[in-house]
């Protein structure tokens, strides 16, 4: 048994093909002049141009951005405060909170989605709140984003030197000053990285948005899903390509931020 063998390399290349073939075909066909079929009929930007005048796409884009920005901001605050509490302040009950944070990561999307659907229905019947729409989608997204933000921020906190906090304290800083001028600036790359991941999770979510949405709150993935059910058009390839590009850029930035050392 050796570290590297031709067999391992062959399988690895096959895996990369498996991972990238679907992405490649969508990107390539978004530039294909052919309206239908698998034949290459020359390059065009027409499908991208059409996106900008397609009202349904515009409205889905608006909904997706509102949802992603709002939910990410909320999850960044909730996830960061939770991470701080867990790493620095809590001693009892940590196991329970860790378990709670594992649930949204491991629970099948569909189970979370129908549980929220049912819950929002109950709230509507009893308290006349949570009409299905933007609010309910945002609430659902924040729920699955919190563990990811908390995870990234905790990793950063764990790598931080506690001596820095103590030095500030010894120099007479109050708890708030320590937090504001020492902990928070050091934590910032972690918070931004966590927020970027949360943003792509929200932007790409289909199942929760599909169940928690109402008329008029169609997100981009929900729009893509209904289009795929009707038959894929090159415009959908163009839209998908843009969506993937945004996710990839956000993720790469997040990973670069995470790799930065805690100085």
């Amino acid at each position, binding site marked *: *048994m050796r570290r*590297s063998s031709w*067999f*391992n390399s*062959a*399988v*690895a290349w096959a*895996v*990369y093909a*498996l*991972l990238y*073939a*679907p*992405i490649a*075909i*969508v990107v390539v*066909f978004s530039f294909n002049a052919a309206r239908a079929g*698998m034949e290459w009929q020359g390059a065009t930007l027409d499908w991208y141009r059409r996106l900008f005048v397609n009202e349904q796409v515009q409205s889905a884009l608006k909904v997706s951005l509102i949802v992603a920005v709002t939910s990410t901001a909320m999850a960044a605050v*909730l996830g960061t*405060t*939770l991470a*701080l*509490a867990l790493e*620095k*302040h809590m001693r009892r009950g940590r196991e329970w*909170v860790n378990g709670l944070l594992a*649930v*949204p990561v*491991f*629970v*099948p999307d*569909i*189970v*979370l989605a*129908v*549980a*929220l659907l*049912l819950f929002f229905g109950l709230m509507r019947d009893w308290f006349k709140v949570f009409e299905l729409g933007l609010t309910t989608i945002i609430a659902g997204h*924040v*729920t699955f984003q*919190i563990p990811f933000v*908390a995870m990234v921020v905790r990793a950063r906190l764990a790598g931080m030197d506690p001596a820095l*906090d103590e030095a500030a304290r010894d120099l007479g800083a109050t708890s708030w000053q320590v937090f504001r001028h020492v902990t928070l600036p050091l934590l910032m790359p972690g918070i931004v990285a966590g927020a970027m991941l949360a943003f792509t999770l929200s932007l*790409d979510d*289909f199942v929760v948005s599909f*169940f928690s949405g109402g008329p008029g709150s169609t997100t981009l*993935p929900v729009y*893509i*899903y209904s289009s*795929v059910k009707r038959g*894929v058009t090159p415009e959908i390839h163009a839209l*998908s390509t843009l*969506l*993937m590009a945004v*996710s*990839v850029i*956000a*993720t*790469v930035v997040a*990973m670069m931020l995470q790799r930065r050392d805690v100085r």
Partner: protein
Amino acid sequence: MHTAAQRQDKGWWFGVPGIGWLGMFLVLPLLAIFAVSFLTRGEYGGYGLPVTIENYRRLAGWGELGFDPLYPVILGRSLALGFGTAVLCFLLAVPLTFFVAGLNERRRLVALTLVMVPFWTNLLVRTYAWQLLLGPGSGLSEAASTVGFIDAGEGLYPSWFAVAVGMVADFLPFFALPLYASVEKLDWTLAEAAADLGANRWQVFRHAVWPQIRPGAVAGFILVFLPATGQFVIPDLLGGAKTALLGNAIQQQFGQSRDWPFGSAMACVGLVIMGVGLFLQRWLNRPKEVAP
């Protein structure tokens, strides 16, 4: 000097908003489906009394006309799909992670990033792309009909094969990343020592390599198996109408069939599977007192 005990206390309320949010939008909804799974479907959808275990009986195969295997079969099929996906991912992830670990540091980072990037692109998009890649008339379908795997003019999609391809392509990164964490730390001197002592390739893997990568493999297996069992988009888009699975069945009960209590019971089964899976992972990866 502040000890942990001193730093404790006052700041604990920092956790309150986050825990409160998860309590409201995670714990309460899950309790709600648990409660509703014991109720009865109303005449026009919805739910009401009486309290009953009828939904679970139906899931277990008690039909109105005696034994009805429909739902046990759906459940078994979903578990089999999750298990099969995890096994296939394992078989591909081991050579992949060994390949990556054998690269120099620069290339290793690139190779790992390349495994992760697709995971962050839209699942729906990657899935419908397989409709194109495997559909009738695609290069892969024609190649498959040439070797007699399918009839001429047919497509590899929709089929179980297409579902399997879509599942493995989607879940592989979930397996590869935790497995890589173990493979990276692998102590190769043990493998070399075993080989020097006359162990064959299989024995080296089984006794010198496997015990070292087992924690990563268990974590990867659970990370794939759990979400794969409840996957809804991939079977929906690649399986055609024939492939009823837990995820689609839940969707159907909350959609067209409007039987929320029965759908809730299915969702609760999904939760139980998750609980058992997480427990198994903790148990299998528990810290050992003595090395085997």
